[in-house]
């Protein structure tokens, strides 16, 4: 399937616009919140028992250093120029740690967690949803689905805590937090790889259990629609094998709205994953972002949300670009 240049260009354009709007909102919102990030930094140090005798001087020195005294417009322009270069300067509350370093350390964990969870949750949910209809699993199917739906209605944060208590503290099957074994090096060895997988298991399970039900329901209703379609009747009349009909007709067609939903759901999945990371003290963006919000660490908030928006927008862009390949009917001109 060859995509028209105009389609690709339009997708890119909307991608850029989305990222720009998000980046701007991202700039304005933390600044609309009352309070002063430098003051927050000092307050945090003091709460930890440190005595900052001359906070007024320190605050003044830092305000100057971070250019927080400049006009909002100047700050915005310099923010945008540096955002394009993926340079967000230094963390306000963790000066002089560069924001991009914080992000680059954490991003692989978050992306890994998200990618694996989304793939598992989407595949399992979608396949189960299709199979329940296709294999005509009636009441017993509902029995299978109900727990998943129930789990889907629990906030991921709470689900994470429940899993932690059951599988880590009670059964001790999985470690309770972090991404690596305590005391282990970060070298790439088989043992470390297995450890990373074990540490990722519960966070991934939290996200998968919370979201698979949604995919299942969506796929189930789409599969019902497809099984009532004319082309399925014809496929049966053609004497095709069940497997062929299931894959080439049922799944291939019913999955299309799922893929669209995937792009839509991406944002909320990321949001949920952030909290799950906090529960598991997983070294992803989550705990940094949460703390940065508490500390009004503008630069970190900006850098992280920008990165998340960029990731989500890229994922949506990829889905958009792949979609015509999945659904040849897509009308390039109307989109």
């Amino acid at each position: 399937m060859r995509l028209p240049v105009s389609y690709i260009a339009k997708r890119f354009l909307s991608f850029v616009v989305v990222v720009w709007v998000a980046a701007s909102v991202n700039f304005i919102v933390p600044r609309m919140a009352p309070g002063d990030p430098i003051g927050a930094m000092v307050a945090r140090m003091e709460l930890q028992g440190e005595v900052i005798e001359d906070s007024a001087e320190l605050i003044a020195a830092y305000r100057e250093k971070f250019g927080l005294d400049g006009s909002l417009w100047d700050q915005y322009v310099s923010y945008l120029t540096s955002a394009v270069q993926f340079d967000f300067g230094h963390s306000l509350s963790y000066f002089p740690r560069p924001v991009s370093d914080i992000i680059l350390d954490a991003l692989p964990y978050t992306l890994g967690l998200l990618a694996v969870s989304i793939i598992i949750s989407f595949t399992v949910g979608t396949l189960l949803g299709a199979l329940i209809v296709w294999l005509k699993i009636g009441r017993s199917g509902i029995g299978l689905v109900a727990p998943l739906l129930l789990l889907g209605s629990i906030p991921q944060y709470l689900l994470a805590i429940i899993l932690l208590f059951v599988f880590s503290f009670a059964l001790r099957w999985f470690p309770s937090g972090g991404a690596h074994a305590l005391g282990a090096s970060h070298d790439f060895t088989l043992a470390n790889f297995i450890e990373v997988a074990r540490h990722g298991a519960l966070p991934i399970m939290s996200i998968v259990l919370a979201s698979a039900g949604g995919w299942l329901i969506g796929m189930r209703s789409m599969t019902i629609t497809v099984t009532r379609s004319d082309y399925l009747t014809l496929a049966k009349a053609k004497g095709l094998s069940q497997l062929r009909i299931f894959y080439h007709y049922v799944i291939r067609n019913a999955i299309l709205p799922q893929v669209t939903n995937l792009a839509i759901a991406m944002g909320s999945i990321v949001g949920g994953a952030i909290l799950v990371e906090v529960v598991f003290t997983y070294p992803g963006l989550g705990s940094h972002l949460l703390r940065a919000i508490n500390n009004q660490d503008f630069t970190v908030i900006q850098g992280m949300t920008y990165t998340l928006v960029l990731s989500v927008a890229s994922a949506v862009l990829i889905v958009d670009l792949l979609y015509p390949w999945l659904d040849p009917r897509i009308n390039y001109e109307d989109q």
Partner: protein
Amino acid sequence: MRTPANGTRNLLQSADDRDTILSLNDLHVEYASATGTIHAVRGVNLDIRRGERFGIAGESGSGKTTLVNAILRLLPETAQISAGSIHFNDIDLSRLDNRSLNFLRWSRIALIPQGSMSSLNPVMKVGHQIAEVIKTHEGKRYNKDVRDRIERILESVGLDGRVLNLYPHELSGGMKQRVCIAMAITLEPELIIADEPTSSLDVVVQRQVAKTLIDVQERLGASIILIGHDMALLAQTAHRIAIMNEGELVEIDNVREIYHRPRHRYTQMLINSLPSLEHREERDIPPVARADGGATPLLDAQAVTKVFGYKGHLFAKSTEFTALDEVSIEVTGDFPMVTTIAGESGSGKSTFANIVLGFAKPSGGAVYYRGKDIARQSRSEFAQYRREVQAIFQDPYEIFNPVYTVDSLFRVAVKKFKLARGNDETMALIEEALRVVNLSPEQVFGKYPDELSGGQRQRLMVARAYLLKPKLIVADEPVSMVDASLRLMILDLMKSLRDELGTSFVYITHDLATAYQISDQIIILNRGKIVERGTPEEVIKNPQHPYSQSLIQAIPSPNPDIKW
């Protein structure tokens, strides 16, 4: 598995029997539903001969599609063959296991589905959809030979062989239908079941496709069962016709007998309800002069143009296309009349209806209602216009708000247009309107639109239009989805509204036969342009434009003696 054509046959069978390819014996099909068992097919007996084109005619709900699905064993879960047998050659299809069925399907019995617009897998290329039957039944991979073979088959139904590389949405309706025909004949089956094979096509294409179907059937020597509701089409294509009503075959005979000497009452009704192009009843009530008539036309469309899409820009090609191109139509205000705007799909006739109803604004030109530009009415003028100009649509389900009961919908209409004072007066008005369309309040009050049958909804639509006693009704394909009996009733109603209430109609249709019967003026649109206009006699009997000629020529006559 494949039964040899000769040899193992039971020698006691008669010559006639040997000629029989499909034999249904006292076939019963039942559906389980929430309200009880529905007996959809009731004791059908039928023999179809080798090489025969056999038509089964019936209205919606008559059980004809259930019958087809029973033969192919494609009944839904809830349905079952409760009695009887289906013998295909020597094999009782009703008792075959799935594996054997899959063997038999397509290689010996193929289907041309109803609604072939949606019968092709939208995400699979046409070639693959044909190739997969070759792979499944002959075990051949999609290689050069198979490709060539598919191309040849596509060419044999009048398509370009390269169509195999296209997706269904890239094809027109007629092309899709041909693809379905090509698919059906790929394995050269003995029996083809064609379920309403051309019902979604425009008349010109319908004729071509029907001809193609007959052509390939004759070439293969296969039998074909043609299912349809259009008696005229069946009359032109089938050798024998069975009439199906409420699950039973009420009459089976050859085409001529059915047309000229229908025996069953139901058959007679069907034949009588057929609009004919041969003669029309002249309008017997002379036009009455109206008090508010005069020089000003009731509706005056002047050079109405509608362009859809947008001009291109840096990233997009222009997608403009002209749906209406300087269309001028005048409906006189001197006397009530029916003006038909006829055309195939894409001709712009529905766009015109939408502009007249104020749902769309013309890109150029203007529509004047009693001298006022409808696009420039004041709020109060527009409210008045809304009351005086009503609409009847093809599928009224989309028109009624599904969250209101029928009576509240009607009450709201009465209240909105201040037609009555007080509850009693309101009810009296509503009941009168329902009576006109043969509905009783008990049948519909308290029900939601989706609890009613399509026919009931269509009648409600007419009743609502009647309730408001409009000056003009825009009827957009009001009868294209309804059964013959209801069609007759609605068309009669239109006539009586015109003659008794003095309501004028703009009748939008693709069906020139009904247009011929009820119109006072016919306008034929083609690709947004008027190609023909005049009285029904002028337009139908003596069309000037080649397009009109081909259109009229393509209309099948219910009389088998008049060749298509």
